[in-house]
């Protein structure tokens, strides 16, 4: 067990926030898609992984990280749109388990496809040159790239919040999570809204994949455990609550990174302990509305 010096603590807090940021982005999409479409999207981890691989391919061609960050969400947004349109939407009205099983199967197909195309082994992914190295803050050295991940996620979350609060489409999202039928009656093509929401959630997952790639490299299985942990985050935050996803994502990231210093073998277990503790006190999650699933 490492001695928990203030320097190490500060570093681990940043590591935790960066990991938490990735959780936030994934949980945001999961929560959005569940809140609007009542779809438990088991392909979300595979979309995250695909985003990282699109970035890997773009980086191989151009060497430009910023281009990766721009391309992956666009490509995955289109894929998400198509998946909702042709695979998920025919299952609406049949119960929550149909889309769940479909996306579960889809994630296997996607992971296997990536194994066939890119190989089973993973690849390292360099962080962009401008963000390599560390910066000194108050005598402590922090890896610049992790700071960037936190800042980038903060920007994305702020942009999404402004979008949801201040645009017409955001108004549709806020209302549609509560009462989709009234939107229909007021002339809104709800099917189209759902496709766009699914595409948006998928694009955010892709962005998370690109941001995570320099931290851990890319592997076909990188989305598997992230998916489960992001589900935990949405459950802790409250299914369908976007603010909850942010708070719970950061919380889970911090808990994992701090436990991994003190007791590395308990790091992943701590996530589930946290979930159990939150659910015992608040069964609907930190910000969940009771009865959303009912």
């Amino acid at each position, binding site marked *: 067990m490492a001695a928990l010096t203030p320097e190490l603590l500060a570093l681990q807090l940043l590591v935790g926030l960066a990991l938490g940021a990735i959780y936030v982005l994934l949980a945001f999409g999961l929560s959005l898609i569940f809140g609007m479409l009542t779809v438990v999207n088991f392909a979300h981890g595979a979309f995250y992984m695909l985003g990282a691989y699109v970035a890997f391919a773009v980086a191989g061609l151009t060497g430009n990280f910023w281009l990766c960050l721009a391309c992956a969400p666009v490509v995955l947004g289109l894929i998400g749109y198509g998946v909702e349109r042709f695979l998920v939407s025919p299952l609406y009205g049949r119960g929550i388990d149909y889309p769940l099983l479909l996306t579960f199967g889809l994630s296997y197909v996607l992971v296997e496809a990536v194994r066939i195309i890119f190989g089973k082994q993973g690849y390292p992914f360099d962080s962009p040159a401008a963000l390599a190295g560390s910066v000194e803050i108050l005598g402590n050295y922090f890896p610049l790239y992790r700071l960037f991940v936190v800042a980038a996620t903060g920007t994305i979350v702020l942009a999404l919040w402004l979008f949801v609060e201040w645009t*017409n489409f955001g*108004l549709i999202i*806020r209302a549609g999570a*509560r009462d989709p039928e009234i939107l*229909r*009656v*007021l*002339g*809104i*093509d709800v099917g189209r809204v759902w496709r766009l929401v699914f595409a948006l959630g998928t694009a955010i997952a892709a962005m998370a994949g690109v941001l995570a790639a320099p931290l851990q490299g890319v592997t076909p299985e990188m989305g598997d455990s992230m998916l489960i942990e992001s589900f935990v985050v949405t459950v802790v935050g409250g299914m369908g609550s976007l603010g909850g996803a942010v708070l719970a994502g950061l919380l889970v990231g911090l808990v994992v990174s701090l436990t991994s210093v003190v007791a590395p073998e308990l790091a992943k277990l701590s996530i589930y302990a946290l979930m159990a503790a939150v659910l015992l006190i608040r069964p609907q999650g930190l910000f969940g509305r009771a009865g959303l699933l009912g």
Partner: protein
Amino acid sequence: MLEVKDLQAWYGPGHALQGVSLEVRPREIVALIGRNGAGKTTTLKTIMGLIPRCQGSVLFEERELLGLPTHRRFALGLAYVPEQRRIVPGLSVRDNLRLGMLADTRGGHEAARIDRIAEVFPRLKERLAQEAVTLSGGEQQMLAIARAIVSQPKLVMLDEPSEGIMPVLVDEIFELFKKMRRDGQAILLVEQNVELALEVADRAYIIDQGRIVHHAAAAELLADEAIKERYCAV
């Protein structure tokens, strides 16, 4: 302008509408009355495209509506105020009103339209920023109506607009229906409060067990105690 012919609808195996035919002409208020479970709500929902299993014919300005999705029916000028008002919780009065304007892109500037509709509903005007679910029942009903008519539909269908509302506000709402008729809109009105509905309506249909069983001028029905007793006693 609205011609419903032999409309049938099902909930699973339940045959809720077994042949409903009715007509609403321009600038007319038509009441649809009948006892609990007769099929009034189902009739409105089927016309709006909210009941998946149905057959028959619904012509709106000579266009067949059956088969069109709900939002396309709205775009043709058909509006529906569902029972229980369905105000969206978590949204302000203004945002609830904005919901009614999202699909209608021809209507012009948003702020101007909110001002215009707020003139019609002074009670809402003072409360635009307030969370909508904190309004009284009657004010919520006004909001639901405002939200449905802000896009200036040609025909408005309302499901029990007087339910659970203070009498003063009911009077205000029914005065508004007369004004809408003067302004050229048509109304299909479902009401439990039969006397009230027949006083404002031009014509009325009585529905029972999923079928239209009687149809007459409203004034005539208002005087016909026997019919009212038979089909409308709760």
